[in-house]
């Protein structure tokens, strides 16, 4: 798939309830973009979670020519809500193709609020990650409430949904289709389009009948025994 056509804004901002798989998606998105673009930059702005953050994949991202900036670079393993000045580069340098990985929940999305005036003057897209297996956002109603809270706190408007419904290693086609139905429902109520369905490579082919493109990913945020 041509990922730049699906995500055709200069800055992709990845938000959602924690545990929906934002980081896995964001890391895969950056890697896929790097195959089509120079100057891809990913910013790990997760100030909520202490583990499983995109900064853990620094070496792999850098090998693919992606620059990673994280919320507290000199103390990558701390949970300090400090943002590096470098982050402004993504907003100011228009030759950069940026991916922002935001921590879970409206609380995590608050980091974006101070950059709101800069972001709105750029070509950006706020993406909301949908996962129908997460109990607190499994219905269209609860997911939309989350989405609206994130919009309210960030002052940004969401313009794309990403279905990332999975059950870790136990994911089947059924899970992805369940998420597709939820994303569809959210889309019908809000008018926000579904940009893609995320599926591990082994499932991608069998999902080609879905209306929107399927983004095949390989799992990067592995657990230590995987």
């Amino acid at each position, binding site marked *: 798939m041509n990922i730049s056509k699906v995500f055709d804004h200069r800055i992709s901002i990845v938000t959602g309830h924690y*545990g929906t798989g934002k980081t896995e998606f964001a890391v895969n998105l950056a890697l896929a973009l790097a195959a089509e673009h120079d100057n891809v930059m990913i910013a790990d702005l997760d100030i909520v979670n*202490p*583990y499983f953050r995109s900064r853990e994949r620094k070496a792999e991202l850098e090998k693919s020519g992606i620059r990673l900036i994280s919320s507290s670079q000199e103390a990558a393993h701390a*949970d300090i809500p400090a943002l590096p000045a470098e982050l402004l580069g993504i907003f100011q340098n228009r030759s950069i193709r940026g991916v922002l990985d935001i921590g879970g929940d409206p609380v995590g999305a608050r980091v974006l609020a101070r950059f709101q005036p800069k972001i709105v003057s750029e070509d950006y897209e706020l993406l909301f990650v949908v996962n129908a297996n997460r109990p607190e956002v499994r219905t269209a109603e609860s997911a939309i409430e989350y989405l609206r809270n994130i919009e309210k706190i960030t002052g940004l408007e969401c313009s794309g949904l990403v279905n990332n419904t999975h*059950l*870790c290693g136990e994911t089947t086609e059924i899970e992805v289709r369940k998420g597709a139905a939820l994303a569809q429902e959210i889309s019908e109520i809000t008018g926000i389009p579904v940009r893609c369905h995320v599926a591990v490579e082994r499932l991608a082919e069998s999902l080609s009948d879905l209306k929107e493109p399927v983004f095949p990913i390989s799992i990067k945020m592995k657990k230590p025994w995987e």
Partner: protein
Amino acid sequence: MEKELWKGNEAIAEAALRAGCDCYFGYPITPQSEVPEYMSAHMPKYGKVFVQAESELAAINMVYGAGGAGLRAMTSSSSPGISLQQEGITYLAGAEVPCVIVNCMRGGPGLGTIQPGQSDYYQCTRGGGNGDYRTLVLAPSNIQETVDCIQEAFDIADQYRNPVMVVMDGLIGQMMEPIEWKPYKKRELAPKDWAATGRYGREEHNIINSLYIDPELCDVHNKHLAEKYALIEKNEVRWECIDCDDAEVIITAYGTPARIALTALENLRAQGIKVGLFRPITLWPFPEKALHDLVGNDNVKVILDVELSSTGQMIDDIRLAVEGRKPIRYLGHAGGVMPTVEEICETAINALKEVK
């Protein structure tokens, strides 16, 4: 039932609610803050009590009060916070107040790191508080098992009128995994006629107390506690053996290291190396007899203990069970550094070479 994707800490909180936790007292600390966060969001809906205490010390004493009144009380914290609660835990054990304490462990000593650790083994099995007391310690190694343990922990605590700890390294609290909410087997429990809820016409007040001024009475009380601990040792010990029957190397590990060891085991078995995994599920009571009997088998050549600890702590219990009959090797890291599958494989192969 359909599987759902849960974060470990959220699942701990939800499991406690499903087990009938009446009140939660705690103070936020990484990597377990999602427990109080979830409790604060959900408990009021069910008319339950959530209090963010001013400190861990206050929280454990609130648990003492609520548990003493017969309610299902719980606190959770991470290593340094649990250190602060040790005084309260010995009082709870002494006064025989049931409660559930969750320790989502991080690396130490002191403030250490917010990354996962298992160096609170001594603290939870030997007790960081004073006196001859024991807390039953459950050590699940995935989120499903954590959820099951948490629910059962409330019943165990009530049955023995004793604090029950559920301990997991921070990774289990922070990771996501699919789980299923299964109805758990509830235990038959006696009514809490000891609880300090008022006299209701009885002759005597119920008193919750750990102070026994009279030496004879204190001796009798301690004897009673010792008998209770012996009963727990007899009834509640749990472990899991994987591929141990013909194993030449027995890996001992609990929590996340046990899962890493399992992948190592599969890799080693594929190479024809006979490896087994012995995973304690209760850290106290430690499955001493089971391990003692297992290592007595002629096929067992060496034991490899793997922990998230620089020097190893559970290894002392392993030594007690092994009784010097077989050599023991150790692999461990602190600071949140995980032993890798490759490292475990290499250490197991080398250990076997050395002893053969």
